[in-house]
């Protein structure tokens, strides 16, 4: 009996892996007999509600003859979508927007529909397949929406990255080339340069610049090599020492995660590392001097190394438990197509991930978005698991707290090792 159970368990497990591997779909042509009633819910950011309602209206105008739609719009910030969705996936919206760093967790929990399966639906109704969607969007955004070689969400915007805002009245275009000159100029002006160190999203930029990598295994655990040697031949200890030197400069201000806009408005800064969401705050604070550009280089073992960054995106996904998966996918495609990405830019100044939408003159003229585009050449798609964040935040904090000393190489190595242990620990 016991043996039988074991065999059964193995068989079940095998069936499970098979079913997981094959996210297949039935083929066939859509029926044209009868108009279905389709009820959908969609979540988007608070600030976007009016714009999204317009997109829903245009969606209904376009597809209204194929089905009777009843689409309800709800509020859920892209930055917290994962928390709400994962509490109860079945109760979450059919279509929801989220920041790309949440993708691995959402996929592992089975909360996202595999878009590859929707190829047929997209082709028969929207007239374009998954390949067309991928081709229309920047390759980075497609990478960020893919996991284990499957495509899970539609790229909506390419604005979730950071670069340097500065006040051109106080620091010159020459000063902003390196951290050393930037900090020196800031010191002279009696102002500060701000950056968040206590977050793995920001502080990994120094490591990425030096050729270090992070990645994700199929089981959801994170890989990270910050405690070893990078492809460019630098060690993690050397990078950390550079970071400590920057943080120790009196003109440097370590800003808590989430406090950046507040500090920009506070008026003590002449330059700050942040993203497009702070454009208005920076504009207000720097006035005529408002300018933005790629991140500076930093001194690493006597050489100047370009600081990397995280190329983040906002994505729109379809709930795997949606009652109307096909139409939900079409809605998600619709609100992220070229047309609507253009609307998003004109109404809310959100940088498009769609290549055609991004190439317009208006986008190029936008100071913040063009700075982001400039930095994106050094951007890395940061696909990491949930265990990445706490240890890396702590690592950054121990630098700015002065807990790690530049001359204590063994201490730095130990901190790096501990961080890596935490980041790579198994998912529970």
């Amino acid at each position, binding site marked *: 009996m016991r043996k039988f159970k074991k065999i059964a368990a193995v068989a079940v497990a095998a069936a499970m892996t098979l079913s997981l591997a094959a996210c297949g779909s039935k083929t066939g042509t859509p029926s044209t007999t009868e108009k279905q009633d389709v009820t959908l819910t969609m979540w988007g950011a*608070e600030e976007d509600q009016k714009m999204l309602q317009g997109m829903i209206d245009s969606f209904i105008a376009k597809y209204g003859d194929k089905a009777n739609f009843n689409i309800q719009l709800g509020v859920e*910030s892209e930055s917290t979508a994962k928390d709400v969705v994962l509490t109860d996936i079945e*109760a979450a919206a059919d279509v929801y927007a989220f920041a790309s760093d949440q993708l691995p967790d959402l996929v592992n929990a089975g909360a996202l529909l595999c878009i590859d399966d929707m190829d047929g639906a997209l082709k028969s109704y929207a007239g374009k397949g998954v390949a067309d969607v991928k081709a229309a969007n920047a390759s980075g955004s497609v990478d960020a929406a893919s996991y284990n070689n499957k495509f899970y969400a539609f790229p909506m915007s390419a604005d979730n990255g950071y670069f340097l805002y500065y006040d051109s009245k106080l620091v010159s275009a020459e000063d902003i080339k390196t951290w050393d000159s930037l900090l020196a100029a800031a010191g002279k002006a009696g102002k500060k340069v701000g950056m968040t160190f206590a977050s793995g999203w920001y502080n990994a930029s120094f490591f990425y610049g030096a050729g270090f990598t992070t990645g994700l295994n199929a089981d959801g655990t994170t890989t990270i090599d910050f405690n070893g040697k990078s492809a460019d031949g630098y060690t993690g200890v050397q990078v950390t020492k550079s970071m400590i030197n920057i943080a120790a400069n009196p003109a440097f201000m370590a800003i808590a995660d989430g406090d950046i806009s507040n500090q920009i408005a506070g*008026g003590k800064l002449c330059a700050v590392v942040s993203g497009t*969401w702070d454009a208005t705050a920076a504009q207000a604070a720097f006035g005529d001097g408002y300018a933005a550009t790629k991140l500076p280089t930093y001194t690493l073992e006597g050489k100047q190394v370009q600081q990397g960054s995280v190329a983040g995106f906002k994505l729109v996904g379809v709930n795997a438990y949606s009652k109307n998966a096909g139409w939900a996918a079409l809605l998600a495609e619709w609100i992220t197509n070229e047309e609507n990405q253009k609307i998003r830019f004109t109404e809310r100044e959100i940088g498009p991930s769609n290549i055609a939408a991004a190439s317009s003159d208006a986008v190029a003229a936008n100071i913040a978005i063009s700075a982001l585009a400039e930095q994106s050449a050094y951007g890395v798609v940061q696909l990491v698991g949930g265990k990445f964040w706490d240890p890396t935040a702590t690592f950054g904090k121990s630098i700015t707290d002065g807990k790690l000393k530049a001359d204590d190489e063994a201490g730095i190595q130990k901190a790096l090792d501990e961080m890596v242990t935490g980041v790579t620990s198994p998912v529970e």
Partner: protein
Amino acid sequence: MKKKTIQIITHNLLLLVLAIIWLIPILWLVVTSFSSYPGINTSTFFPKEWSIINYKKLLFSADSVAQFPNWFKNTFIIAVFTCIISTCFVLMVAYATSCMRFKMRKPLMNLAVIINLFPGILSMIAVYFILKTLGLTNNHLGLILVYSASSGLGYLIAKGFFDTVPASLREAAYLDGATEFDIFLKIVMPMSRPIIVYTIISSFMVPWMDFVYAKIILNSGISSQWTVAIGLFNMLEKSLINNYFTQFCAGGVLVSIPISILFFIMQKFYVEGITGGAVKG
């Protein structure tokens, strides 16, 4: 005589200093709510420019982020029903455990003590799924049930109060042929105004303060369904805080005004209620 006057002055001055310490954050809340700059003010205590725009926006021009009138209405309705149910439950349990004698009395009271030792926050996810099975998520009734259904567990203070009601009164009523129900309604209740007020105030406040359960139960993202607490809490999202922080403060002020008034009027009863209960614990 003069020495006494000085003593009185120093005494009241000491109170004044303490009161100022206690009120500084509240004062900051009030003055910030009158600031015309929407973000957090870090450099000065008082706003650079005064304005009532936050209140105007909050009360008269609801947008998708701030729907204060709706939230206020929702919370008020939830609070009224929570308050009615909780008050009934608390008084019922307190009367049964204090004035009546039955076999299961002691075991039930011990069980209540034990249950109160568990961290309640842990069971949130299970409560959510129970409500979902009953079809009560995204529903104000569900929230009312969450706030009031277990309120019987908080009966101890009320029980302590009932314990102080002289048993002779009840015995006299029995001899006159009154039933337990009559005694409960016509003798004990009229004497218990303080504890009723105390229970009403404390249960009325719950929906205004809770942001954990409300957030998980009202999870459809329809912001007009929210309560004041989650609506205001939501304004502190990273992407919103710089445009809504002062409205958040204004909302906080608006919520605390009715509660303060309630407190001021009911102060005497509140103190008597809480005391009567604490005396016997």
